[in-house]
């Protein structure tokens, strides 16, 4: 919805820029940079004791998953293709990165490159498959790939450490060994870059082609969109994002267990995308916050709710159901409706 038809819109950053003055700025990238700067100040709060130290972990987690969610949003929101393979590719990225950085002793950059490239190649294969299989069958086919990867993580002890998991240390960048706070800043930088990349992708010619493909494949083909090419692009991008997210995960959390990369994780990422709202970059990040941070950061700290085992998750489940039932367009849809005359314009555009 943002910037469709190549219009240079500035209003896809309402969630992060609640002040009206910022909307009028012509450059949306500035918004992303500001957002990133804002996020990267959090370690200061943490070190000065204004914020609990564990909070930084939770927020960092959210940033990691936000990268994967942005990838899925690209796939689902723009190309209209569904994938349940996110977890498998995240896991693949994390294990490759861990293996290269720890066992082979190579640099962070080598690990990053390989861990993003190899899963992307697998993603290309799924793009090929997606030409034959559709809808819910495609979703389960991607789940199939994810399960194959998951079982391999469990079995290939020599590379993945099997059920015991794999550990790495914080990355070493340009000769500096990072600590928790600086790794967190690295996450913020990567997320900001990914947000910018996504924005430029979907507002360019590729984004328009994907839009057309989602609306009607036949019409898109008639207009000269090469279906194979764009499906491959969509899937390889989504896979690359998930793998990147996996790399960030393993360097921030420092561990990777097979039990993390299961179906539920893929479903959570999907939930984050739908709750945040399709085709909204800031919405996706808010959705990720709702899915991962709300139970740990807010609900667990409530007086009665947080004390009982499991109750925060029940509340979060109910919250997710309620959002889906009463805000089918996600939180970004709610936001657009809340702004009176912008909402009307959006609705018109959506028609």
């Amino acid at each position: 919805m943002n910037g469709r038809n190549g219009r240079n819109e500035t209003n896809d950053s309402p969630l992060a820029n609640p002040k009206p003055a910022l909307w009028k700025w012509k450059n949306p990238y500035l918004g992303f940079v500001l957002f990133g700067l804002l996020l990267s100040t959090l370690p200061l709060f943490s070190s000065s004791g204004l914020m609990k130290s564990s909070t930084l972990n939770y927020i960092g987690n959210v940033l990691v998953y936000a990268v994967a969610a942005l990838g899925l949003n690209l796939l689902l929101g723009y190309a209209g293709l569904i994938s349940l393979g996110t977890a498998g590719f995240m896991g693949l990225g994390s294990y490759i990165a861990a293996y290269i950085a720890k066992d082979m002793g190579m640099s962070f950059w080598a690990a990053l490159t390989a861990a993003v490239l190899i899963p992307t190649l697998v993603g290309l294969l799924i793009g090929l498959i997606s030409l034959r299989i559709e809808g819910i069958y495609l979703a389960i086919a991607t789940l199939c790939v994810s399960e194959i990867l998951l079982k391999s993580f469990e079995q290939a002890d020599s590379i993945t450490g099997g059920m015991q998991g794999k550990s790495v240390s914080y990355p070493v960048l340009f000769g500096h060994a990072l600590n928790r706070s600086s790794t967190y800043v690295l996450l913020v930088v990567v997320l900001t870059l990914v947000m910018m990349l996504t924005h430029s992708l979907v507002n360019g010619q590729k984004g328009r082609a994907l839009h057309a493909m989602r609306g009607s494949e036949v019409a898109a083909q008639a207009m000269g969109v090469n279906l194979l090419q764009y499906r491959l692009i969509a899937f390889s991008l989504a896979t690359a994002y998930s793998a990147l997210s996996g790399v960030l995960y393993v360097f921030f959390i420092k561990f990777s267990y097979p039990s993390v990369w299961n179906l539920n994780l893929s479903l959570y990422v999907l939930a984050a995308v739908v709750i945040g709202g399709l085709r909204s970059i800031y919405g996706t990040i808010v959705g990720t916050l709702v899915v991962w941070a709300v139970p740990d950061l807010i609900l667990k700290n409530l007086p009665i709710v947080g004390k009982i085992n499991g109750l925060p998750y029940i509340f979060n489940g109910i919250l997710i159901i309620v959002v889906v039932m009463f805000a089918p367009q996600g939180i970004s849809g709610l936001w657009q409706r809340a702004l009176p005359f912008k909402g009307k314009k959006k609705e018109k555009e959506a028609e």
Partner: protein
Amino acid sequence: MFFEWVFKFEDVFKESIFEYEKNAMGASGAFALERGGIVSNELGTVLQLFMRSLETGSVYALAALGIIVIYRTSNLMHFAQGSLGMFNTFVVTYVFLSFRLPLWASTLCGIAAAIGMGFLVDFLIIRHTKKVSPLAKQIITLGLIMVFLGLAPMLFGVDPLSLPRFLQSGDFNFGIASISHNAVLNISLGLVLMGILFYVLQKTKMGLAVRTTASNEPVARLMGVPTRRVTLAAWALAGVLGCLSGVMIAPTTTVTTSLMDAVQVNALFGCVLGGFQTFYGPVLGAYIIGVGRNFLVYYVSSIWGEQIMYLLILIFLIFRPNGLIGKKFVKKV
């Protein structure tokens, strides 16, 4: 000389069985081959494996049937089938351990809880989602997963519990293969239950109502089919099927929140393998996966068998994108 060879064979066989058992007892949660059965030759092994696979298949098939019933009547992919089954298995285990009821009575309690849960889910949530987009609807089942994952430790504690088998001991011996009474019970329970369900679906008025709702919900409502009651019953049925598959799989592992993860995934694969257009397709798919998985794990590789099975499903889907019994879906432009 001959005896030496026999002993050697037995050792090798036992070792491989043990290897297999370890693998089956792992995260996959499938049924393990029990040691000590009288197996004397290749045919016996095949028969033995086949019967075990039928048992695994029954579990997957029951879960898959629950998924397809919900898919057809409520038009959503039931990702929470496993979690719902897990929760109700916790109910069974809790009743069994705390109130010292016999297992069948505990299972009845679990079934009652499953029906209640199914009613609640439909009554409180699914009924009000007519206007929600199909994609967003799937997310509701995800919310349900979170609720059940939270409810189970809250009500029943975080310690893993264990549930015994229905029939503790006893084997049927066929000379070349043997099967435990409990396995026979599980297999026949699955088959009988599905037989009854398919009879109801195909031959009774009630089944006609379900099939009409499945084929076109608005038109069914116009024709006077009580579609609300049909969906309500479908959710209750899915809950019961999930509970039964949970109770069947529970003795092979411990009752934890991840009890049904493997069942859920395999039931989903069964659904795509069989195709979503019929009620019996997914059941067939689930049995095929149960059999195929065990044979591949035993004969090809205990490490890579499962992955090969999934890869075969993937390749099969490429050639038949709508599953085994799926009809071709013609897209209108």
